[in-house]
């Protein structure tokens, strides 16, 4: 083989390499979405205490996350008017969660953002007029029930982004690890459930720590765990047989007014159904189940609890459904005002829709029996664009 022939014989290889490089770099075509369990809704929600109604919503600019600041609003029972009550001193662009031990006290937890890696806390006993700072030296999980406050004792329960669960001493100090996702999943209760991700933390009315998550082993009992006698055991509602072969996720778990309320999603994808469950006591207490709400693929974006057993769910596409209790049925609400972040219950029944447009919050009311939302109040929020970046 001459030098020339050898050179020429290498050229197809070179050209082939170039072609292969070009052809091999075609864009990857991803497959269709897998049927995954419904995830917990956004942090936007509302909370009712003895002296007022609270709501969390995100406001600001759409351009970058660090210009979207989460805000807390309160409607004191005495005035009936909403006002801004975001605790000061910390950037809230990572998210805000709320919990109440009952009475008029509310604890807010900041999810860390940007270069902050732990969660400052703030507590108020006067409808947000003054906040007392606190601290959780870890990052709260991005779920609306990441923080829970025990009735009377002042202890806090925190579900962390790492999957760990920490319990504080009285007054929200002296945090210690109560559980980890790995340990809970390895426990007898966790194995029976086939525990996926943890989704919520709460206290029972008597102060027993509760955790909730996704069960993938299709047990009869939903994935709510109670911590008694030094062990975790399944304490969720027993589901009808028709849910026997479905994943069950707990989307919300809250305790207010001596009752635990859980919002469950059964199934995956467009076959998902939403169920509410109520219980008045600790482990072993009976649960009442609501009728199912077929979601038809709609994603719950916000879930709020009202007085008594009422529940309202905001679904993607400005739809909402409300439920009055175990004996009631899911009732569609009139089409929500555009930008509705969450629903908050009215003291006299009915719902307030909190609609966000950049820095403007509009309150729309739907009194009982009405079919039209009416704008009743507007709040301009002085968002400090660019203050976090």
């Amino acid at each position, binding site marked *: 083989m001459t030098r020339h022939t050898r050179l020429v014989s290498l050229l197809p290889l070179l050209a082939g390499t170039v072609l292969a490089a070009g052809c091999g770099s*075609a864009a990857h075509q991803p497959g269709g979405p897998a049927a995954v369990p419904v995830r917990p809704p956004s942090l936007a929600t509302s909370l009712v205490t003895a002296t007022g109604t609270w709501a969390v919503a995100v406001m600001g600019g759409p351009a970058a996350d660090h210009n979207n600041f989460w805000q807390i609003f309160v409607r004191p029972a005495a005035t009936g008017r909403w006002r801004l009550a975001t605790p000061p001193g910390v950037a809230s662009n990572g998210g805000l969660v709320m919990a109440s031990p009952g009475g008029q006290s509310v604890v807010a937890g900041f999810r860390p953002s940007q270069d902050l890696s732990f969660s400052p806390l703030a507590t108020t006993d006067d409808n947000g007029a003054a906040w007392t700072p606190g601290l959780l030296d870890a990052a709260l999980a991005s779920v609306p029930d990441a923080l829970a406050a025990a009735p009377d004792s002042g202890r806090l329960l925190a579900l962390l982004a790492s999957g760990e669960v920490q319990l504080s001493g009285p007054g929200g100090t002296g945090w210690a690890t109560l559980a980890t996702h790995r340990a809970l999943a390895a426990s007898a209760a966790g194995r029976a459930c086939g525990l996926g991700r943890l989704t919520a933390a709460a206290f029972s009315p008597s102060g027993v720590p509760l955790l909730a998550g996704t069960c993938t082993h299709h047990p009869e009992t939903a994935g709510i765990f109670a911590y008694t006698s030094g062990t975790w055991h399944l304490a969720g509602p027993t589901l009808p047989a028709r849910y026997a072969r479905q994943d069950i996720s707990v989307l919300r778990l809250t305790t207010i007014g001596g009752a635990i309320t859980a919002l469950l999603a059964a199934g995956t994808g467009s076959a998902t159904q939403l169920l509410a469950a109520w219980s008045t006591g600790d482990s072993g207490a009976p649960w009442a189940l609501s009728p199912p709400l077929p979601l038809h693929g709609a994603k719950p974006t916000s879930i709020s609890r009202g007085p008594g057993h009422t529940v309202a769910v905001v679904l993607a596409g400005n739809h909402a459904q409300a439920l009055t209790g175990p004996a009631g049925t899911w009732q569609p609400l009139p089409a929500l005002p555009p930008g509705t972040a969450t629903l908050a219950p009215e003291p006299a029944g009915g719902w307030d829709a909190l609609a966000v447009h950049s820095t403007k919050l509009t309150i729309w009311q739907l009194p009982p029996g009405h079919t039209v939302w009416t704008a009743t109040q507007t709040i301009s929020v002085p968002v400090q664009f660019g203050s976090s970046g």
Partner: protein
Amino acid sequence: MPGMNSGVNVNDPTVIAAFKAALLHQGVIALVIFCVLGVAWVTVRAWLPAAQAGGQDGLGGSAAGAVAEPSWRQLLRVGFGVLWVFDGILQAQPKMAIGLPSQVIEPSAASSPHWVQHVVNWAGTTWSYHPMQAGAAAVWIQIGIGIWLLAADRGGWSRLAGLVSVGWGLVVWVFGESFGGVFAPGLTWLFGAPGAVLIYAVAGALLALPERVWRDRRLGQAILSGLGLFLVGMAVLQAWPGRGFWQGSSHGHQGTLAGMTSDMAQTPQPHFMSALVNAFTRFDEAHGFAVNLFSVAALTLIGAAFLTGRRRLARPALIAFTVLCLADWVLIEDIGFFGGLGTDPNSMIPFILLAVSGYLALTPGTAPAVAKAEDDRPAAAAASWREQLRPASIRRSVAAAGFPAVVSLGALGLIILGAAPMAAAQASSHADPILAESIAGSSAPLNFPAKGFALTDQHGQPVSLASLHGKVVLLTFLDPVCTTDCPLIAQEFRAVGQLLGAASKQVELVAIVTNPIYHQVADVQAFDRAEQLTQVPNWLYLTGSVPQLRQVWRDYGISAEILPAGSMIGHQDIAYVIDRDGRVRQELNTDPGPGTTATKSSFAVLLTDAARQALRPS
């Protein structure tokens, strides 16, 4: 890509002024190099009689009775020599020092696979850490290679210039052009594939060939065949369905080629140039299929004609190729070097030079019928190398060195002039303080007594400024629950502790809380843990009651403002340098700017320098 972007504005006046100053200083040194070499050469020729007789031209080259350089090689050498010089001048554009990694290298790598980005990111980070040295290195290395190619027409010096051209060309192709984008989608000859600098490297390899193959007709055939096969391959790629080249526009979106040209037209440039490119874009949008069909057909036919290696077919193909390249250069590649960050005139001119050289090498009449040159005999050459190491031989070689050898030596000096500072900078893992200076501005020297304070440290122990007497204090103000600047400044302070080394025992790194709400010892402890400051022995994070803190803030010109609606505390980013006697010697703006790895490192160096300055006896 982390590290690629220093975050400093490409038009930053501080950096531009420093870059210009660096080029000016090195330019003076370059002139001195050439002057010294020139004087030395004239002197040697006057003093040593061998110089008058002519003879060996160093590195095996021949001066008298040497073989003439064939026209294909002359074209390649002079053409790429001019291109290297031109590219070097383009590298001297003011925006280049800061802008090249973030606005040239990073976009070119963005669509490439992860491993390519990883490789390119290393180079981009290196550049962004030392923008002055890297920018100047690119200027002098490329000008040096260009001058070398232009000056050395034959012999060892000339072949070595070709090899250096290959080496630097490959460096630029890999790190500057992300392998010419050959691993990225959208690869097309029309837009510069396989990367202009790869053609520089190919030309360099041809220039490095020994003289015995200069007149071999098969070399011309090999050049044209290689080019022909490449063009046919590019035609297949251009015709490949699903890559968006057959559509000028689809569903209101531009096709691949129209998208590329409309992006190019956005580059700042003379209006008539962008008008031409825009006109072509509109034409392609309307007749995308026809444009691609023409491109595929032209590349295939020209490539096939080159593949035959026959002059009769190669000549018209060469004319067509030249016209096609020029049209592509103007209408699609948009000349390539406008906008302040253009690094070269793109691939079409190098392609023309390569093709014409191949054609000339194919033509028998272009090579003079001269006997084999002396250095064509390998055994004799090997012997002459050993011979040349002897003092007498070296003296003879120096005396006989011709003008090309002297200029080549000067060009080598230019390359070293650029490469040496970059290599020295690369030895340090810390960024140039010029980045921090460009963000923070200048600080005037101060000299007044620092106001005292008595606060509590992160361990709950009382600390006062008086208790730190005898040590240099770097004092700053941080919010323990801040989400942006404060963690960055804390990391910079931690790096200062490491940079100071043994001297850190004489320096206290002190921060004072600037949050009137979150100011408990638990808050500063959480901050210290998050920023890994708990193991820094000379780190003190001080807090106190709100009245105590407010007094210190007043004394040091700090305002901690509680902002509404979920914003963090607003406060200034300032550091004070307090000397051993408790006197303020500097006030530094520590706003960390974009907080990139380069600027963080740069601030750490700036603060370290300030601390070291305060440690020196006044």
